């Protein structure tokens, strides 16, 4: 139960964590209590009390974009798994979800993560070049690897923005990209017949779920976009002084 308290914002925990844990320890929690604590944590993020300034609604946009992108990606994959060839009309959602993933990334957090962003942009550029080389098995493999790294890079940046710690980011990357890539490699290089066994495309599902998870966390926490004014307007003056 004490793990659930970690879902609450830092400012809330600084003020209430001790007495809240004492309360939770005072009686055995029911399932309803656990759901109530999770719902309370969501509320504490959305409606911070005390001295914490409420976030403008624009801070929720990146998270909503990421959430919708993940949901669209997952919906297309599920459509192919269940309806096979007739799901082709849904395929337009894949480029749309990729667009939303890109749009969920720009923000003021980038100033502190210039190196990762430079690497991610470089990898995306490299994979586009490799994917357009003359067709051969090595270039196909290299192209696919490049795209996987690019997809992993997008997810990593979103996870950095959502303030997911380094070890958890790596775990997310392994579950959403590395494991599906290893499992799906034979399909990707044409060793399997996708038209007969579309269920194999389910390996793409964890990537969509990962974006839903990151998007949800980002939407709850909020993150300043490039056009948002600073939350504390006096700060630059203090710095200048």
């Amino acid at each position, binding site marked *: 139960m004490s793990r659930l308290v970690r879902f609450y914002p830092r400012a809330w925990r600084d003020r209430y964590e001790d007495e809240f844990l004492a309360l939770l320890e005072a009686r055995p929690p029911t399932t309803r*209590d656990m759901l109530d604590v999770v719902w309370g944590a969501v*509320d504490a993020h959305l409606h911070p*009390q005390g001295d914490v300034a409420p976030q403008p609604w624009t801070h929720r946009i990146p998270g909503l974009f990421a959430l919708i992108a993940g949901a669209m990606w997952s919906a297309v994959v599920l459509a192919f798994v269940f309806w096979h060839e007739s799901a082709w009309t849904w395929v337009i959602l894949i480029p749309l979800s990729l667009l939303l993933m890109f749009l969920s990334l720009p923000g003021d957090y980038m100033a502190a993560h210039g190196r990762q962003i430079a690497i991610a942009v470089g990898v995306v550029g490299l994979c586009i070049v490799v994917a357009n080389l003359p067709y051969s098995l090595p270039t196909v493999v290299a192209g696919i690897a490049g795209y996987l790294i690019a997809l992993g890079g997008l997810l990593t940046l979103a996870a950095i923005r959502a303030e997911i710690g380094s070890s958890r980011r790596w775990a997310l990357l392994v579950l959403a990209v590395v494991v599906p890539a290893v499992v799906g490699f034979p399909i990707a290089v044409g060793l399997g017949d996708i038209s007969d066994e579309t269920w194999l495309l389910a390996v793409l599902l964890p990537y969509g779920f990962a974006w839903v998870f990151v998007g949800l966390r980002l939407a709850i926490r909020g993150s300043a976009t490039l056009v948002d004014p600073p939350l504390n307007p006096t700060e630059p003056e203090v710095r200048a002084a």
Partner: protein
Amino acid sequence: MNQSLGELGRFAEPSLYILVSLSAGPKHGYAIMTDVEEISGSPMGPGTLYGALARLERRGLIEALAPEDRRRPYRLTALGATTVRAQLDSLDGFIRTGLARLDGKAS
């Protein structure tokens, strides 16, 4: 002067129960929970309790006292007492009107 609890949304009803509970004297979280369960007949979840406590504290209706061990008692402020009295008076009027209408004594 008193404050409306209506602006607290889904926390309005739990907040009223907490204010009524604290009307009998300072209590910490667990004591409030058990007291509210007695008053209302249904349990209040820990997340709801602390969501309401944070809102009431921010609006100056309750205040935290020095912690005893890890448990921190809360007490009603003067504004909180005025507010809960106004809320209960309003509910009392509503209940009287409703009962009178059911009994056919008033239109």
